[in-house]
């Protein structure tokens, strides 16, 4: 299997090319082909879960071929634990998104599925690329199909939202490109080789001044995509106006590009600058958490509410990441997957009622649990997963993030906790307004419950939510090496401190997760300070000296 990743990568694109040959009047054939291709794309990616070796620190399934030798760009693919999980998320959500469009899209079906499949290849490519230029290529390739998905099949304000999404992401992207080029020329001045090889960048020790600028350049690119406050304003518009599948892909996968970018590029390549910018990143994250949640609380539009909840959740992900310790980063990655599952699910749920009623106004609904019991039940699970109820996936991510952040700084943890509380508030308030009470709107009296196809789109999400909630160890095990590598680069003192000052090893994320139900064990594993005492406040996991 020398070309396993290429196979996963190009299956959707091949499907798109195949669709080009089909007559556009033949809607059924188009749907079947698109669904089959997406399903195959998912199925062939599943072995990645089993074949991936969690013990191996290097990138796996590596493919390497010259692409533009005169500038040293390569076709260089490979995965580690982080990208493996995100690739699996992508192939799964891609299939779900396509399946969910069966009845929703009747206009220009052929183009619609072609754009979705091309988008899929773009996203997979970005997660697989180990060549920075190749990564950027895939990163930008995603823009155009998404632009069309919003612009053609979106709702009322679609043109505005589409161009806003496009230009925002583009500005961030091109500034990032300049950063990439500066890094490239710097690497050449040190190593004498022109190359965009990421593994080589990971070994560089870049002077602090350059790191500072590069961090800002990359920050613009990634922060727009996450989106971090104050670059988030495109997101509610894009989500609200996108078709259901577009929202699902956008929320579940595309936002992860930004966080993935930080983890893959900013932290390991620019460790000193990353540490230096911790206060700024934390501040923006905390604002994002609280602000996103408060705005979500005030929404009258169902989809907009979920969109703002995304802002809040992704800010939580960023906060966990910039705790810069293994627990926080692990939590941040797990929470990315959770956000993909729960928010993807919530957007699907909005799509289901939107297909039946063609409105997203929350006040139009109420008492739906009477007519759509299955729907209400699934909605409940997704809501709880989003809130972070124990036994569901959201809890694992949140507890890890909170723990990592707590070790770093108690005050930050307080704000992160407030985000969880507010999250419960807006989600339960939404649930109460739409599902409970009497049916007061006669239009809702004869709504149909989920069809088998619709249920099929939710089934994998439900399974994953419960699985990750009850037994997250397989996920954590796959992330261990990636996280260790990132922390080793960005916060090298962290591990060294434990080795020197404590007799116990630093807690692995897995150990902590296993201990969540046993408080005593939990305490014994708590990080210790320089003197070896259990940690009361700020010392051990604290981000080390800043400039």
């Amino acid at each position, binding site marked *: 299997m020398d070309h396993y990743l290429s196979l996963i990568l190009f299956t959707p694109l091949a499907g798109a090319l195949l669709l080009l040959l089909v007559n556009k009047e033949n809607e059924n054939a188009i749907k079947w082909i698109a669904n089959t291709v997406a399903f195959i794309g998912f199925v062939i990616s599943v072995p990645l879960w089993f074949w991936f070796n969690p013990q191996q620190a290097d990138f796996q399934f590596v493919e390497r071929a*010259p*692409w*533009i*030798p*005169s*500038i040293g760009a390569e076709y260089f693919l490979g995965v580690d634990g982080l990208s493996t999980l995100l690739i699996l998320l992508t192939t799964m959500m891609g299939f779900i998104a396509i399946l969910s469009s069966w009845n929703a899209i009747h206009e220009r079906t052929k183009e619609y599925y072609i754009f979705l499949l091309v988008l899929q290849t773009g996203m997979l490519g970005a997660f697989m690329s180990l060549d920075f*230029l190749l990564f*950027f*290529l895939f990163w*930008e*390739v995603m*823009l*155009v199909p998404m*632009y*069309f998905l919003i*612009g*053609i099949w979106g709702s009322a304000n679609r*043109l505005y939202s589409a*161009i806003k999404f*496009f*230009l925002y992401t*583009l*500005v961030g992207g*091109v*500034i990032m*490109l*300049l950063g990439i*080029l*500066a890094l*490239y*020329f710097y690497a050449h001045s040190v190593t004498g080789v022109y190359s965009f090889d990421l593994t080589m960048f990971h070994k560089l020790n870049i002077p602090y001044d350059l790191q500072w600028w590069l961090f800002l350049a990359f920050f613009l690119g990634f922060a727009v995509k996450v989106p971090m406050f104050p670059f988030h304003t495109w997101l509610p518009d894009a989500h609200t106006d996108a078709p259901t599948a577009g929202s699902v892909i956008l929320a579940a996968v595309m936002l992860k590009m930004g966080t993935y970018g930080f983890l893959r590029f900013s932290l390991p390549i620019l460790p000193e600058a990353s540490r230096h910018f911790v206060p700024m990143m934390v501040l923006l994250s905390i604002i994002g958490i609280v602000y996103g949640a408060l705005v979500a609380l005030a929404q009258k539009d169902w989809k907009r509410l979920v969109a703002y909840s995304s802002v809040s959740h992704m800010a939580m992900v960023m906060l966990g990441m910039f705790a810069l310790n293994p627990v926080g980063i692990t939590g941040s990655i797990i929470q990315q997957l959770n956000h993909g599952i729960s928010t993807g699910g919530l957007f699907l749920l909005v799509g289901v009622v939107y297909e039946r009623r063609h409105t997203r106004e929350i006040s139009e609904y109420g008492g739906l649990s009477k007519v759509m019991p299955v729907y209400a039940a699934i909605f409940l699970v997704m809501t709880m997963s989003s809130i972070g109820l124990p036994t569901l996936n959201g809890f694992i991510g949140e507890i890890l993030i909170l723990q990592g952040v707590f070790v770093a700084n108690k005050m930050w943890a307080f704000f992160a906790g407030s985000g969880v509380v507010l999250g419960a508030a807006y989600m339960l308030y939404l649930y109460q307004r739409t599902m409970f009470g009497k049916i007061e709107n006669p239009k809702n009296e004869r709504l149909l419950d989920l069809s088998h196809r619709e249920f099929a789109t939710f089934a994998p999400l439900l399974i994953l939510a419960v699985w990750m909630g009850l037994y997250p160890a397989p996920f954590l095990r796959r992330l261990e090496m990636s996280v260790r590598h990132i922390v080793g680069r960005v916060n090298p003192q962290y591990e060294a401190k434990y080795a020197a000052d404590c007799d116990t090893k630093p807690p692995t994320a897995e150990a902590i997760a296993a201990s969540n139900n046993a408080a005593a064990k939990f305490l014994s594993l708590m990080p210790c300070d320089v003197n070896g005492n259990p940690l009361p406040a700020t010392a051990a996991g604290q981000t080390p000296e800043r400039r």
Partner: protein
Amino acid sequence: MPPGISLSDFYYITPELVLTGGALLLLIADVLLPRAQRAALAWVTLLVLGVTALSLIPFASTRVEVAHGLLAVDQFALFFKVLFLGAAAITVLMSIPYLQVEGASPGEYYFLILCATLGMMVMAGGIDLITIFIGLETMAVSFYILAGFIKPSQRSNEAAVKYFLLGAFSLGILLYGMSLMYGLSGTTNLRVMAASFAGQEHDPRLVLAVILVVAGVGFKIAAVPFHMWAPDVYEGAPTPVTAFLSVGSKAASFAMLIRIFVEGMPTMGEDWRLLFWVLSVATMTAGNIAAVTQSNIKRMLAYSSIAHAGYLLMGVVAGTSRGITAMLVYLFIYSFMQLGAFGVVVLLRRADVVGDELKDFSGLSFRNPFAAFAMLVFMLSLGGIPPTAGFMGKLWLFGAAIDSHCYWLAVIGVLNSVVSLYYYVRIVVFMYLKKETVGSTPRLTPALGLVLGVAVLGTIFLGVYPRLLFELADASAKTLGVAGVTAALR
């Protein structure tokens, strides 16, 4: 035979001779052929261009100075010659349906296209001010006539007169600068000149010469503030001529620019790099901002082509061999996307519709999906979105700027490319998202289909696999004149 010129000199200019002979042949054929069969002249023109291209093959790795330094036959010139011949061929293909719709007689038209091509080829090879000027005049005069070729059209006449008056004026400025250069060095040969300018960097007369030549060349590449003619001429001239003007003439002028400044005045680098920095920023910014407000496609493409001249100037500002390579790469890529975009405008010109307004693009994706897709590719490429060629070109221009530590120039450049996407995407919005349509359905003729097909394939192929182009451009840039010049500029 005049002294100093040998028979071997004629061997080295075989391609130019073939092209001249072909052009004269065409003129005769025009007279001899009955009026009804004159459409066949287009194919004769293509044949001439093809033979000329074939005659370039023996010189693939030649590097000589012909006739005591009047012309250089090197890979730099070769690169441009291939570009000109390709652009001319695509222009001819586009012209077939266009002239039919306009009802214009094709005779002198194709002759003039060939003359313009000849002028460009001489410009690219010229390493002597005299040769360069002769090439420039040959090209410019052909274009003055071509711009006014649609005789009944008032816009076309206006374009020709404007272009002629402003062109003559700017040539005067350029000549004045050239005469100063000659007066100060006592030679018209650029390479000899370079040596005699060494150590005189602060001579105010020389600085004046630099300023005048920059202004003269600035007019030709339509750099702000010498760009005023471009939108009117582009809008009024027959569309294929506009396409050729914006690609061929621009590329030839950039070849001339590189020859004059990099080969002729390397020691004045400090001065002209600063001047071009200012021109570059002004050109891309003004070009893009003006393009945003246009509703006429040809005017919009005119402003966009002004902006692209601004991007291209970044390569000169970088002043390194990498910068020159990037310019060559970008010019090559630019010709595909720009010619393709004008090809779609030609397609929209039907008997009942002029087809150069933004609203004429409305609903194109329903009526002619291939043309709409082609235009989409060209617009994304002009805007620099991967996986199209435009991205690779911009990547390399910005890369050259960063490599020379012109960070702010690069930042201004990328922000400009974001602005440009706003108006490129607007065309896409009309094609894909609006449904109301005007006039008859635009149909692809075989010739136009070939143009769009080649341009689309070229744009995508060079975007995904630009390896060969990068290597060729790199080799060409390295053959440029004094070997140490570009390195000395670092």
